[in-house]
């Protein structure tokens, strides 16, 4: 069985965020977590690597190269990650796995169920749920290797809860010996006991787009960011990942984010370009210019900032509700939110 493994720059040992713009590479044999797959009896023949930012910013180009290599290598199965709670890495894994699976190469990823890579896999690839952090590696690898081996061998794959992967949104009819009434009561009892394993997860709620503003020259606009932008020295100790809070900083009298006066503490990207000119994260200087020219009504006097890096969805949702409340009370009419 020929196994191809996909990793990002970090897990391939090519560097941290500074190497996130690394173009796709092909390496012989197992690298990093691939060696762990080997210990589980899944020998990796080839490792494909791509920087997370490169994949996100040049998806078509990255996919073209990675899929060409997958074809050349005649992979029987593709293993991606695990990418845990990392959004960009997970997205790359889920997208590549989906494309591979749609071309007939079975693929398995490992990531946290809230990772945006799960919807990216789109039910075409298998996703083994993992913890949010890299400490879940030892638990994830045997389960990923087990499923990958079955897929590579072309063995039949059972239901999600039996095989340990996330439901893919497919239905499969089976004949159950128990009559419907008994199954209904069993399921109700399981639900009351909190042990239901087969329940489909709710899709993330979509909020319909609010009506547009009529004229920018008449509105109060607020700036919100999850780029980890803070005053220099990070006086309120915003976290570089898994932020526990959002922060508000005054913008009154601030015409631009001067280098040396503001910085980013985000741990998920190389902050050098942003710290050389923090307006590259939040476009305050340009907003002020448009405001002074009367093209924009008024800039709201507060910047709302946090770090969006491995933040659990529930935490981000709580931040969002709290910030939205403040914006609503301040009669803000429009928001520019910059994300990294």
């Amino acid at each position, binding site marked *: 069985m020929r196994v191809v493994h996909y990793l990002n720059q970090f897990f391939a040992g090519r560097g941290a965020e500074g190497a996130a713009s690394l173009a796709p590479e092909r390496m012989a044999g197992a690298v990093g977590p691939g060696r762990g797959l080997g210990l589980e009896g899944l020998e990796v023949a080839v490792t494909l690597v791509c920087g997370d*930012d490169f994949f996100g910013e040049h998806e078509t180009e990255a996919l073209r190269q990675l899929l060409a290599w997958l074809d050349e290598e005649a992979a029987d199965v593709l293993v991606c990650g695990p990418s845990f709670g990392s959004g960009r890495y997970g997205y790359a894994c889920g997208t590549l796995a989906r494309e591979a699976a749609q071309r007939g190469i079975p693929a398995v990823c490992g990531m946290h169920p809230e990772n945006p890579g799960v919807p990216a896999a789109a039910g075409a690839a298998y996703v083994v749920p993992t913890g949010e952090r890299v400490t879940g590696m030892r638990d994830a690898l045997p389960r990923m290797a087990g499923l990958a081996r079955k897929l590579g061998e072309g063995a039949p794959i059972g239901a999600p809860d039996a095989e340990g992967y996330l439901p893919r949104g497919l239905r499969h009819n089976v004949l159950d010996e128990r009559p419907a009434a008994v199954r209904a009561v069993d399921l109700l009892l399981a639900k009351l006991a909190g042990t239901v394993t087969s329940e489909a997860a709710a899709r993330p709620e979509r909020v319909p787009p609010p009506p547009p503003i009529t004229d920018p020259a008449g509105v109060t606009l607020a700036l919100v960011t999850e780029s980890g932008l803070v005053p220099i020295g990070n006086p309120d100790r915003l976290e570089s990942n898994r932020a526990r809070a959002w922060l508000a900083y005054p913008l009154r009298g601030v015409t631009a984010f001067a280098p040396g006066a503001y910085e980013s503490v985000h741990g998920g990207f190389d902050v050098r370009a942003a710290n050389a*000119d923090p307006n590259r994260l939040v*476009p305050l200087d*340009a907003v002020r210019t*448009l405001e002074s020219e009367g093209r924009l009504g008024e800039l709201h006097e507060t910047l709302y900032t946090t770090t*969006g890096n491995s933040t659990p969805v529930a935490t981000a949702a709580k931040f969002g509700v709290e910030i939205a409340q403040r914006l609503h009370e301040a009669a803000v009419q429009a928001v520019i939110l910059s994300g*990294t």
Partner: protein
Amino acid sequence: MATLTTAIERVGIPAVVVTALPTIAAMAGANRIVHGVAVAHPTGDPERSPADELIFRRRLVERALELLATPVSAPTVWEV
């Protein structure tokens, strides 16, 4: 970032997301998206001269304001 956006839009305030990863933002529920330059500098471009970069950023903000003033019914991605 889309989670914050969704919460803000739920109280009726239109929000435009500027990001280098528009596909992820759209998938996660953002409705108005402007394609930013790069993950590490969504609203700037170190490759340009300082004067050029400022002109570009102004254009980016103008596009964002324009999109905020445009009715959309589904996730919409605009290039700068």
